[in-house]
């Protein structure tokens, strides 16, 4: 079985002195680039004491930003989980024309600037956009409203789940599904009882990364948001607005939530990797 090969011990090389330098560089980079900013975020947020910090989070605009962020993620992440499973299934278990094109398209959001990912929706659904007149006539709002935020977030976070599943599903092949079919299972039963359990941990892992990015996304969301306080500002946009207002406690308090989300994601991700390394794909690149 292929699973056995991944547990082979890695050959370790010892180069005297080099190890020390490498470790030192990594630790310094970690401290300077990750731990220091993290410390600054929480220090600034709590600069005027805990009550001020809590008050900043309870401000109506902050609450509405938190709500909006959760709402956008709650729509975008499940949809991307479904799209991701569908795309990964198509690529790893079926043969069809244009497969490599699909594979490239999935990666597209990684390679284009998030600003462009936001702008395409403005060009499509903005007042001057392709469908702008039609939307206006039917009193539908996409840009500067929640649908626009969701669309922009979906586009930016599309690759996370698919990228996580494709290598794993390719490695697993389609034999187990074929076996289930010969044993009399329907297509849906096969998917539910064979495919899904085989990818559950990788799926969770992808959803986790997708969620972290969905909640933290700034660029694409910034373009379609319109920055209407209390209405279309997500948490990252809220941070920017407050920072520009010289409200550093408020800005850093909101930022601390995002930082906290990052830490929680990291812990869960590590726990997943630790407990289910065999069932996550080896070809991960994040």
């Amino acid at each position, binding site marked *: 079985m292929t699973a056995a090969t991944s547990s082979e011990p890695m050959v370790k090389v010892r180069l005297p002195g080099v190890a020390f330098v490498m470790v030192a560089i990594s630790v310094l980079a970690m401290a300077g680039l990750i731990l220091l900013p993290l410390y600054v975020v929480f220090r600034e947020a709590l600069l005027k004491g805990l009550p001020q910090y809590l008050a900043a989070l309870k401000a109506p605009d902050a609450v509405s930003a938190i709500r909006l962020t959760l709402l956008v993620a709650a729509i975008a992440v499940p949809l991307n989980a479904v799209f991701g499973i569908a795309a990964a299934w198509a690529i790893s278990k079926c043969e069809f024309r244009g497969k490599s094109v699909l594979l490239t398209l999935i990666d597209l959001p990684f390679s284009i600037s998030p600003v462009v990912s936001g702008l395409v929706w403005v060009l499509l659904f903005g007042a001057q956009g392709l469908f702008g007149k039609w939307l206006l006539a039917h009193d539908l709002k996409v840009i500067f409203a929640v649908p626009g935020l969701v669309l922009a977030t979906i586009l930016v976070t599309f690759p996370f789940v698919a990228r996580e599943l494709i290598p794993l599903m390719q490695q697993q092949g389609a*034999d187990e599904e*074929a076996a289930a*079919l*010969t*044993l*009399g*299972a329907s297509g849906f*039963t096969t998917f539910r009882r064979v495919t899904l*359990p085989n990818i559950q941990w990788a799926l969770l892992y992808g959803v986790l990364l997708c969620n972290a990015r969905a909640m933290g996304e700034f660029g694409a969301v910034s373009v379609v948001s319109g920055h209407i306080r209390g209405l279309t500002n997500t948490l990252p946009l809220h941070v920017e607005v407050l920072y520009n207002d010289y409200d550093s406690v408020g800005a850093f308090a909101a930022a601390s939530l995002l930082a906290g989300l990052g830490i929680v994601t990291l812990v869960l991700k590590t726990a997943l990797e630790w407990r289910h390394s065999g069932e996550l794909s080896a070809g991960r690149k994040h």
Partner: protein
Amino acid sequence: MSLQARDKEFLALLGPSGSGKTTLLRVLAGLEEPDAGEVRFDGEDFLALPVRKRKVGMVFQHYALFRHMTVAQNIAFGLTVRPARERPGKSEIRDRVARLLDLVQLQGLEKRFPSQLSGGQRQRVALARALAIEPRMLLLDEPFGALDAQVRRELRRWLRELHDRAGVTTVFVTHDQEEALDLADRVAILKDGELVQLGAPNAVYEHPATPFVFDFLGQACQLPGVVQGGSLTVADWETAAPEGATQGAVQVFFRPDEVAFAPAEGAGLAAEVLAVARRGPDVRIDCRIEGVLMELIGHGPTLPAGVAPGLSVRVKPLRPQVYA
């Protein structure tokens, strides 16, 4: 090509890689659709049935066990996915799994996961899982391909006994001629998607229909010859031609171990012995016949009389086959 398996038969599909044997098996299972042709089972049109309705038990080359299920859950899968009204009760499923575990001699391992089993055990779980649905036909894709030689031989005998007890028509795919001849009631030899020969192991081994079959079923020595009337002439050796041999120039094939050695002044093909090497019960005799280097095989603890490096002997093929 057309091929018919008999009821309760153990049929081997034998061929080199790329001969289409696995594709044929997958067509039977319904996992692949043929471009043309038909598949019938007891007169029923099999192609009209989807995979899940065919009730064909398939054992995949790498077993394809469900990795997140225990041995017992794997075996029970085919029963638990049935629609509610056809599904046996929980206790009946448990009994059936226990009986199958008994049959494949894996009692006590029902709680293990596939990753905790040896290759041979995995194969037996795959068989039990396929048998659980009481298949109308059992399909095995290279059943011993992923096992080492020792386990392979044991399982071979065991599989044959299992087939005789279960009484299910079984079709298995292999590229190993020894395995096919040893196990099967009949062997179908495939090449480039064509059926070249079909017959009982002895029949195909004794009378290969083509040079390809002759070569594929064992080692082959080859020399040009001429058939005239009832006699076959190879170099200065003349013997009776096999029955039904074509007239004129032919290729003569014989097995390196189906030869008799005679003194240089006797009848046979003139051979110059180059080297002799003992290989357990057999002796390898390298010699040159008609300018061609050949590895002949002698049996038994003593060398054939007069055979030693540097000597000339006569070699008489015992069962030459001729092909146009």
